[in-house]
């Protein structure tokens, strides 16, 4: 009976005016979005390659610049890439890695990227509401609901096919969206974006997350349809919840979190660190003066003096970094706590949960940026500093050679995202939330429908 009702539901409402209009809208919107994302990805890859080439040639034992590789799935979900720095400056004479400027993306603040994440998370969840909100109320208004309820079947056998029909429509729309979007990105990215088995798996998981978010809104629409008696009121109520969770909460949430869990202002933290560095620098300079006087008195040659100088410099560099690291650790912990709480608040909204999961899978979220920063710190400690001091030890500044002699070849900075399974594990919180929300809404909808009175 269940399958018969499902088939009937698909035949009657599978291809309606609303579904066709939505597919037409997607057909209009996908090409410009996908094309612009393809071009943006091509630009990002070329830009980064040029910068990397220049930095590789220009890195010295005093300073080196590390650039973050462009995330492979950037055209699907831009996330925080472009908003946060993808370059770090390592300096041998400073305790801090310096964030080089993020790109001057002047319009990003006014108009967030129109990527696949926006199409799925905003447009297609709206689609889910429009397809599901009148599942019960329309039948009631048409008078067919009474006949349906008079059949000798359990009510959930009538309710569930409606959800499944909506799910099937959304699945077809999602497949269509993905296929056309990815095809356009592959064709117009100048070869920068290509498909391999790992990428296909990642796209599959990304799509599954999007589908879950859409199903939350489909379940919501049908559940609301079970509660109210008129289609127009069901639409208004579903839309109100959609606006609140897709448009309003993702913007309000982080601001609420940053006011409830405040982190110290960046300049306050910097001032404390600079004060500490200044204090240590005074001691360091005094130490150098003492050493210089001592070596001159003992009749050191320049080579021996240089060797001793490099040893002192290395010790002081390690000490300064350790002290400054201790100071910034407290600020880092507070910032991380704020970020975690803000992330959790955001996940209350299904769209927020989708964005969080998408950021993890596409390595464009805050977590990936944090992992990049950790890798930079490790690279600084294990690669740059030792290579820098080795180069400086071999330097002969009294010989009159130009700075080009200070160029160092560093091992290429490697930063790969965690494996797909590890990312799946990281994204378990938002994914589980989405599943729970679907389950709760379905349970609520079925419960209400059991007690539904047609009269």
């Amino acid at each position, binding site marked *: 009976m269940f399958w018969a009702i499902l088939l009937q539901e698909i035949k009657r409402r599978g291809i309606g005016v*609303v579904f066709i*209009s939505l597919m037409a809208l997607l057909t209009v*919107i996908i090409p*410009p979005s996908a094309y612009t994302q393809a071009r*943006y990805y091509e630009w990002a890859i070329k830009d980064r390659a*040029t910068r990397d080439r*220049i930095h590789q*040639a*220009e890195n010295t034992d005093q300073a080196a610049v590390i650039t973050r590789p462009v995330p492979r799935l950037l055209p699907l979900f831009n*996330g925080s890439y472009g908003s*946060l720095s*993808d370059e770090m400056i390592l300096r041998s*004479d400073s305790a801090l890695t310096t964030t*080089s*400027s*993020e*790109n*001057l993306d002047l*319009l990003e*603040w006014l*108009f967030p990227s129109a990527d696949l994440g926006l*199409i799925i998370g*905003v*447009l297609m969840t*709206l689609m889910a509401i429009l397809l599901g909100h009148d599942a019960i109320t329309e039948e009631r208004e048409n008078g067919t609901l009474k006949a349906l309820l008079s059949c000798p079947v359990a009510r959930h056998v009538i309710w569930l096919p409606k959800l499944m029909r909506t799910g099937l429509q959304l699945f077809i729309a999602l497949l269509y969206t993905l296929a056309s979007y990815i095809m356009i990105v592959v064709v117009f990215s100048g070869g920068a974006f290509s498909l391999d088995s790992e990428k296909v798996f990642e796209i599959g998981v990304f799509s599954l997350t999007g589908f879950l978010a859409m199903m939350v809104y489909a379940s919501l629409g049908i559940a609301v349809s079970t509660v109210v008696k008129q289609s*127009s009121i069901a639409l208004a109520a579903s839309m109100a919840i959609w606006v609140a969770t897709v448009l*309003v909460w993702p*913007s309000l*949430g*982080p*601001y609420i*979190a*940053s006011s409830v869990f405040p*982190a110290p*202002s*960046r*300049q*306050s933290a910097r*001032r404390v660190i*600079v*004060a500490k560095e200044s204090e240590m*620098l*005074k001691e360091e300079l005094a130490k150098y003066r003492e050493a*210089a006087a001592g*070596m001159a008195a003992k009749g*050191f*040659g*320049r080579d021996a*003096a*240089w060797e001793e*100088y490099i040893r002192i410099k290395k010790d002081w560099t390690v000490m300064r970094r350790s002290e400054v690291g201790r100071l910034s650790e407290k600020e880092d912990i507070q*910032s991380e706590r*704020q970020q975690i709480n*803000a992330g959790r608040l*955001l996940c209350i909204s299904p769209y927020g949960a989708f*964005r969080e999961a998408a950021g993890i899978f596409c390595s464009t979220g805050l977590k990936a940026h944090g992992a990049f920063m950790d890798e930079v710190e490790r690279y600084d400690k294990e690669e740059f500093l030792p290579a820098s001091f080795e180069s400086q030890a071999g330097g002969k500044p*009294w010989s*009159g050679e*130009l*700075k080009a002699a200070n160029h160092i070849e560093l091992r290429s900075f490697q930063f790969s995202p965690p494996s797909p399974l590890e990312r799946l594990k990281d994204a378990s919180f938002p994914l589980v939330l989405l599943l729970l929300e679907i389950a709760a809404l379905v349970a609520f909808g079925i419960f209400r429908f059991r007690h539904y009175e047609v009269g």
Partner: protein
Amino acid sequence: MPATGHKLRTDGHSFQPMAESFYRTWLFARREVVANWLNLKIIIAFVTMLLLFPLSAHLLTVDYKHRLENWAVNQEAQNDPAVSGVVPFKMADGSFLHAAGTKADPPLPEPTALSVLVRGMDKETDRSVTVGQRIGFGPRQYSSNLLALTEAPDAAFVIKLLVSLFALFFSLDSVTFEKKEGTLRALLTHPLKRSEMLFGKMLGAGLSLALPFGLAYFSAVAYLCWARGIISGEEELLRSVLIFIVGLLYAFVFICIGLFISTVTARSKAAAVTALLLWGAVVLILPNATVLAAKSIFPVQSYNHLGARLYEARRQLIQANLGANHPGGSFFNNPNARQVLFQTYEIDRQLTDEFMLGKLSQIEEAKKLARLWPAGALTFGLSDLANTGTSDYRSYVDFLRSGRDNVIDALKRQWDMKPEEGKNLIQETLDSVSVRKRPVTPLEESLRAAAPSIASLFAWAAIFGYAAYRRIQRYDVR
């Protein structure tokens, strides 16, 4: 005086028909307002907006205070003494130097007060900036990285999303409902002009929205003025009022769109679905896509790419002109040093100007495209009025460039001065550049900058208003 006792215009026509026509329009408007009140639409709009506008004002105020504190600490830190030193190691067979120093972050620009209403490009200008031989932009000063991912929930955000939705909410079923109830047929058989009915509905929907919108918006402004003291001064208040007026015009666009859809569709549900899809496309997706399209059509290298090119160009210039070997000691001992340095200044200036002008052109093209859509026109218009727009950013960039040019001039002049005088000149120039205040765009200029956006909104309202008028004129009563 004619027998009727009505005043005559000098051309001999009576005022009466016009006054009566206006009165009938007003009756329709009043009918709409009363209907919207009785079906609770006005109350729902009022409660929602009264919740969101003050909440938005409060959250943006907390954020503004945080930025202001950040800026104040940064300003204080500029007076912290810089620690530096040079230690010579003089041995019998050679010598070398150790030089080190540390200093505070470069100065930040002061946050704009009206960014609590319209954040605009204030998010982009919230960076430390070094103005010297070149303009160096530091990283953005987020209080939390998560804020990098989200649109600021400012008043412009609430207007863009919610006011437009409520405008549709008020106007969408004003004709379809009458069609469904059968009252439209009855109305149109009366000897009244169809345009009076339509304009009455437009006015009614507009008043129904303007009341809750106005009350909620100005309660937020009052909070910012009296409770927080952020908005003070006549000009800021006037700008706040202008922001409201443009917001109302934007709402009117969607009232016209809603009415047009209402005249085209037969059922409320079809009208709602069509309106929502159109709203989603026109407010959420298309303005964003046109901006991204402008970035693809007019690509500009990234800022870090510029940095890398500058570094490479400078090094190549020095290498090429000074040769592989030069007399030991300072670079300045080389006879070509002056010429090489002047060339590096010019390279820095040229490459940076090319980049900034490229970026500004990109914004202008994106602005032209995005303004074609109501949400794009609203965003640019409101940010221009709040001093956080692209025209303000352009004058900020020009301000930085003039500072940079002053420093380069001083760097060149110092070569013809005694070392001590030259050093003082550089220090004075750097000090004078760092204490300059960012210019504030005057109100007239802001209005001029916002004018095309306002014109775009008028055009949208006129197009859909006229389309609705044509539809209702041709509506077949039978």
